[in-house]
């Protein structure tokens, strides 16, 4: 039987051609290297796993499990506003809650890198307001005083509706208008229920051009107020063209800038009186009225004139470019009286809202916006926040700039400045998750292949 002879046959196998036995030192060297390599591989796998898990957790739709409810805490304003990030999530996907500020952020010299951003009022949440994006640019917008939603209009066409983006729940809805109009949004009432705007039924030849709607409404626009809950619209034909509007704190009156005159009217349009203003001045857009109703913030107003396509002289009324100072006047002065300036003019900046009856929040700076709290009596101001200037846009070729800043004016009154925390930008965008997973899979695949080949060639 062969199995009985096999041990003997094994013993008899010719091993005379055996090469010298391998030395021990190279074996030890390779063994040590193998241990080190496995340790590093384990660390790398752990790191990649952690990254994948973090990504997966970030992807988890928290907002769908926990319906957002209006927060009741004190709103806050971080001392530093985080820089640009392409990974900022969109409101429709992961709403960041009520906002203290909204702004366009980025640059577009060579690469279009703008983002319409909402900065959370309760945490360092940053979200892209995707409802503001259109194929033809961003929608003009206003932030509701309670920071809960953004009202938007069409940037370059007639529309039959206003678009409302809910920053708390992430949805959008439309409010129908009585007829198609081209409109410029002017102000939201303090109770966030009504929106005032200037509208024209058609666009002129000039108005059809870029930025044409604001040009047309500044020349011909009629004031209208629409109730955002019912859609009811009240028109104010006596105010044409209307340039700016500010609601009184009780929401029952409006300060209206028409041409170079300032008027105060009740929201039903029944009572109207003119307000005396210093020469060349009119109300600051949107937020002129102080929270106690006593003051109106004013800015310089001027005109531009030009010959239109039909060779007629056109005039448009607009804020003064050269003098951007803010001056406060009495909101209760009678038309026959004289404008009374309160305090000294605040030299520079754009008025965002009121921190109290005697302090305002201003913003200044283009590429590194600085938010300053300024007393109306002209006493020293203090910086409460600024945009982080370290970050750059367009692959570091340009600095990021801030545009179209709007504040939640109702929240500003109680907002507490605080040290900024780590930015919460929400879940990674799907394209980034796909890229990370692709790289992860590629790394693991290459690692496995390399490991197999190295194992096969360990001796050589």
């Amino acid at each position, binding site marked *: 039987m062969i199995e009985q002879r096999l041990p003997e046959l094994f013993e008899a196998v*010719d091993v005379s051609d055996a090469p010298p036995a391998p030395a*021990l030192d190279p074996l030890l060297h390779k063994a040590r290297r*193998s241990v080190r390599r496995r340790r590093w591989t384990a660390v790398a796998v752990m790191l990649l796993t952690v990254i994948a898990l973090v990504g997966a957790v970030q992807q988890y739709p928290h907002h769908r499990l926990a319906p957002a409810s209006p927060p009741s805490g004190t709103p806050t304003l971080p001392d530093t506003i985080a820089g640009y990030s392409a990974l900022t999530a969109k409101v429709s996907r992961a709403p960041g809650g009520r906002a203290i500020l909204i702004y366009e952020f980025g640059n577009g010299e060579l690469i279009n890198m703008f983002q319409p951003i909402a900065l959370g009022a309760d945490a360092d949440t940053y979200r892209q307001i995707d409802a503001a994006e259109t194929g033809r640019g961003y929608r003009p917008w206003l932030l509701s005083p309670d920071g809960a939603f953004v009202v938007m209009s069409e940037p370059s066409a007639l529309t039959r509706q206003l678009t409302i983006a809910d920053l708390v729940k992430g949805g959008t809805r439309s409010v129908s208008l009585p007829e198609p109009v081209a409109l410029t949004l002017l102000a939201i009432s303090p109770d966030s229920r009504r929106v005032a705007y200037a509208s024209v039924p058609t666009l002129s030849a000039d108005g059809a051009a870029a930025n044409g709607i604001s040009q047309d409404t500044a020349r011909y626009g009629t004031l209208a107020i629409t109730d955002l809950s019912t859609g009811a619209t009240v028109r104010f034909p006596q105010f044409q063209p209307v340039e700016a509007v500010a609601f009184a704190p009780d929401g029952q009156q409006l300060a209206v800038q028409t041409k170079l005159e300032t008027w105060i009217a009740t929201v039903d349009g029944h009572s109207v009186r003119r307000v005396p203003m210093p020469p060349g001045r009119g109300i600051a857009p949107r937020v002129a009225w102080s929270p106690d109703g006593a003051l109106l913030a004013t800015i310089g107003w001027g005109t531009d004139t030009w010959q239109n396509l039909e060779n007629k002289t056109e005039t448009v009324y607009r804020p003064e470019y050269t003098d951007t100072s803010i001056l406060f006047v009495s909101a209760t002065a009678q038309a026959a009286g004289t404008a009374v300036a309160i305090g000294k003019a605040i030299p520079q900046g754009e008025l965002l809202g009121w921190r109290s009856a005697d302090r305002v929040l201003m913003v200044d700076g283009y590429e590194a916006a600085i938010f300053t709290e300024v007393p109306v009596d002209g006493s020293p101001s203090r910086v409460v926040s600024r945009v982080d200037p370290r970050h750059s846009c367009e692959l570091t070729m340009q600095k990021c700039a801030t545009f179209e800043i709007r504040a939640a004016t109702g929240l500003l009154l109680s907002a507490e400045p605080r040290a900024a925390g780590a930015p919460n930008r929400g879940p990674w965008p799907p394209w980034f998750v796909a890229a990370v997973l692709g790289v992860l899979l590629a790394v693991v695949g290459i690692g496995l292949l390399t490991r197999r080949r190295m194992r096969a060639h360990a001796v050589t």
Partner: protein
Amino acid sequence: MRAPDERAYADYVQGRMPALRRTSFHLCGDWHEADEVLQLALIKLYRHWRKAAAAEAPDAYVRKVLVNTFLEHRATWWQRRVRPGDTPHEPPPTQTPEERLDLRQALARISKGQRAVLVLRYWEGLDVAETAQVLGCSPGTVKSQTSYALAALRRLMPDYIQETR
């Protein structure tokens, strides 16, 4: 690995190298691959030396590592590419005297699993249960693989069959 452990590992490897090398050679059929497989197995042993040294029978542990390294090595992508048809499972039915093989050549003609079974049982002297434990399979599988392997050897080495009659 700490220095005392590494010294113990080196002593063990140096002492057992000839026997392990011979087993590896019987499994692989050529010295180049035998040294390669043995080195891979000894590197694995280095990584798990504490466990192996603590085992009641370190040799059994090392044997298991060696055989499994051989089986894995034969399953690698590289080995499959460079050794196509190296291990035909069914030997030719008849051979001329010039074609008759010795054990080394005959082992090269049977499958890696059957070769491992023969080496473990008839070179290492393990019984069915021990062989099954090393290979991680059932005793029934060991028995059937042994039977197939022996049948193959009988066809490949008719001279030895005749001698034993």
